[in-house]
């Protein structure tokens, strides 16, 4: 199991980093592994798995950064994963050595996790991190005494400055060579706990659990864990344990809790002998900052400023970079179009694969901007304070305070917003936020709103003499999305995503200056995960959509085309000829699109969308705008004979809208119905690919499409039918 010492040079040492959140565990991981880390997901669960290599002097380590958790007993996916990784229930080997990263200023709570990990039989050692901060807070730790008391190596460190890594190398090698060095003695359990352990052990052994529990700690883990998780491992096990060892009326007498209290009593006794507190009369630095940042009035004002800054950065600050990405990708595709021979392979490369790649890269600036903001907020300690400040407000819409930043960013774009939900600790809360985030009116909807308002609302009288009708309608779309998000959250909480509503037990860590190295590293990780994992799905979906819009490539009737080509040839003027040729190509493209699979789908679904006021031509747009909502504009341009244009500016959108109105496809009522549909519907491949990556399954993206598009259909149906009955057109 863990017998491979330094004498087996071929296999790297398996080292796991465990620890509470905010202990500098990630800083230590980055310091150990440099730039070489692999970010993935644990199977089936949306917890990120980070693995890297550390080249220690004697033997390389394969370092796994376990998810941060306060306890090993599984009440959250992070804790479940941490336990499973430590006991070989994931696909990774059982770690040879577990380095428990401990915040020197918060020893008691941190050492609880150490005891729990030691109890399940892993050789441990302590990386006593942030010694400098603890010293400043007036906490002096006798490291040698602590090591003696705990009976495992204790390495004092300041991981952020790389201090103590050499000592850690030596200590890990020593424990790997002799695991006995890292065995913390078992906590002596009181009679009631010992009896319960014996009882529970009998049940566990009888149930046939594999591998059977060895230590008392193993038994206690299965006892204290959520019955659901025990049941998932072994059907009926959780319930059997709960029935045999019921929870007493006074929760303080529950043996599960008595065990925790016993561990703390042992820790408190140890710390009493190793830690000296200097009398620090002034309250801590963080408390002084909190007096300002959490002040009822001043704090609220600063919060609004901070959030406005973050939103502005994502919404507008990223735009120049988006423009650069678009123009570079546009040039590449233009170049390829002239270099490559004109055939199907060229088209699939440029309009499928390259379009997908650029559809991925175009999100990067916003993602980087948002995650730059989030990692600064998180590392500084302010993110937890924002959740504290808005918790009550968010509770009214049925979501926790931590949903605020993701939902706010969803007004810029749902893709980074959905990625940002990973700061939310509760799985169900997170899922719920992901499901309602696409309802926030993102910036890709604006070209569609412009198309409609410019065509049918621009020349209407001003409301009350000051508000333009178009502006009011667009504002109403924002409100509609927000209200539906509240209603959806309410309904989903009671149907598809039951439970959640996690208690707010949120650590408010001390304020710290963010470490640029951690910030850069987390940005690179995010960017890489998005490009490599989400990007491949976006490219695949884009190619499929391209095929739908392209095949079977039936353009103008060959005879008509030949006649018109001949007509072009006889034209005299160079300019005239070019214009006629362009018009011929446009007509050809129009017919090709109408005859494509997407065109046929548009026609087939016409009975379905006619009650919303849409004809089959808009149907094609609904299919095509699955690539991204704003793509509706060039598709409509093509369908209504205006030609498509890559640069979707307001003027082009307005022109296309007017062509649609001219052709009778757009009236004020039909336009309103179309806007309502776009405000609600799930029509974005990139969002779907992101939901897939973040939830690790196709189930939730498909669910989002079904529920949001049904909702969109119903709302547009109501608008058009009621509007028609009331005599609007």
């Amino acid at each position, binding site marked *: 199991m863990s017998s491979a010492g330094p004498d087996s040079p071929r296999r790297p040492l398996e080292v796991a980093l465990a620890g509470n959140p905010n202990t500098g565990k990630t800083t230590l991981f980055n310091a150990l592994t440099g730039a070489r880390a692999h970010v993935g997901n644990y199977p089936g669960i949306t917890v990120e798995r980070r693995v890297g290599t550390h080249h220690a002097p004697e033997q390389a380590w394969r370092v796994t950064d376990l998810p941060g958790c*306060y*306890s090993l*007993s599984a*009440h959250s996916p992070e804790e479940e994963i941490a336990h499973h990784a430590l006991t070989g229930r994931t696909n990774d080997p059982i770690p040879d050595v577990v380095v428990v990263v401990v915040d020197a*200023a*918060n*020893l*008691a*709570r941190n050492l*609880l996790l150490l005891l729990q990990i030691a109890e399940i039989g892993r050789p441990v050692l302590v990386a006593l991190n942030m010694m400098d901060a603890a010293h400043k807070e007036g*906490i002096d730790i006798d490291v040698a005494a602590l090591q003696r008391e705990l009976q495992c190596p204790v390495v004092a460190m300041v991981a952020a400055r790389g201090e103590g890594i050499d000592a850690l190398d030596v200590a890990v090698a020593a424990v790997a060579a002799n695991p006995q060095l890292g065995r913390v003695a078992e906590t002596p359990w009181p009679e009631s706990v010992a009896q319960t352990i014996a009882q529970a052990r009998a049940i566990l052994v009888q149930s046939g659990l594999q591998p059977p529990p060895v230590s008392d700690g193993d038994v206690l883990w299965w006892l*204290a864990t*959520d019955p659901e998780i025990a049941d998932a491992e072994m059907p009926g096990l959780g319930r059997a344990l709960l029935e045999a060892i019921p*929870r007493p009326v006074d*929760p*303080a007498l*529950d043996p*599960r*809790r008595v065990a*925790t*209290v016993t561990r*703390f*009593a042992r820790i408190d006794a140890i710390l009493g002998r190793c830690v000296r507190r200097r009398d620090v009369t002034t309250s801590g630095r*963080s*408390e002084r900052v*909190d007096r300002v940042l*959490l002040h*009822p009035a001043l704090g*609220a004002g600063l919060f609004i400023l901070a959030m406005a800054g973050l939103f502005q950065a994502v919404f507008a600050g990223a735009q120049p970079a988006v423009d650069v990405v678009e123009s570079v990708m546009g040039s590449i595709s233009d170049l390829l179009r002239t270099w490559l021979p004109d055939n199907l392979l060229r088209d699939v490369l440029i309009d499928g694969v390259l379009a997908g790649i650029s559809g991925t890269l175009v999100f990067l600036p916003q993602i980087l901007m948002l995650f730059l903001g989030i990692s600064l907020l998180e590392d500084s300690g302010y993110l*937890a304070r924002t*959740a*504290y*400040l808005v*918790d*009550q*407000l968010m509770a009214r819409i049925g979501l926790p*305070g931590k949903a605020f930043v993701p939902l706010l960013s969803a007004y810029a774009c749902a893709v980074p917003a959905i990625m940002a939900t990973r700061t939310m600790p509760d799985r169900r809360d997170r899922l719920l936020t992901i499901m309602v985030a696409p309802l926030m009116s993102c910036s890709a909807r604006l070209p569609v709103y412009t198309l409609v308002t410019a065509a049918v609302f621009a020349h209407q009288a001003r409301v009350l003499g000051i508000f333009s009708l178009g502006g009011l309608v667009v504002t109403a779309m924002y409100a509609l999305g927000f209200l539906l998000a509240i209603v959806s959250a309410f309904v989903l909480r009671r149907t598809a995503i039951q439970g959640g509503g996690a*208690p*707010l*037990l*949120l*650590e*408010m*860590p*001390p304020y710290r200056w963010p470490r640029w190295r951690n910030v850069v590293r987390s940005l690179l990780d995010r960017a890489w995960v998005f490009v490599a994992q989400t990007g491949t799905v976006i490219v695949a979906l884009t190619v499929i959509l391209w095929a739908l819009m392209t095949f079977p490539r039936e353009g103008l009737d060959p005879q008509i085309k030949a006649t018109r080509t001949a007509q072009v040839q006889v034209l005299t003027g160079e300019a005239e000829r070019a214009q006629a040729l362009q018009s011929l190509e446009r007509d050809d493209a129009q017919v090709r699109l109408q005859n494509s699979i997407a065109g046929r789908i548009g026609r087939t679904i016409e009975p379905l969308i006619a009650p919303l006021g849409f004809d089959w031509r808009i149907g094609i747009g609904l299919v095509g705008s699955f690539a991204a909502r704003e793509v509706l504009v060039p598709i409509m341009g093509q369908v209504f004979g205006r030609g498509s244009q890559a640069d979707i500016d307001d003027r082009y959108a307005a022109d296309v809208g007017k062509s649609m109105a001219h052709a009778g496809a757009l009236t004020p009522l039909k336009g309103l119905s179309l806007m309502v549909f776009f405000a609600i519907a799930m029509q974005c491949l990139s969002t779907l690919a992101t939901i897939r990556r973040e939830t690790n399954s196709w189930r939730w993206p498909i669910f989002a499409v079904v529920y949001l598009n049904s909702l969109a259909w119903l709302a547009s149906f109501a608008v058009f039918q009621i509007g028609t009955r009331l005599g609007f057109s």
Partner: protein
Amino acid sequence: MVSHTLDSIQPGEPHRVTWVALAGVLGDRLVELGFTPGAPVQLLRRAPFGGPLQVQVRDFVLSLRRADAQAIYTARVLPTDQAA
């Protein structure tokens, strides 16, 4: 000894935890975070409009909803007890 609940004590006043009356997983979690009998605890501040509380237990600062804090019982540490 007068018993208080964590949501009702004066901000900044030193207290000790006496009893976590919450059953189930949430109560287990609070105990694991350090709310054990005898642990020093104080209320730092209350968020406006009935929002959550900022609480310090041992060396750990966290936010808690008021309803949850209501189930945590405390006893005030008097100046005369502080030597103990």
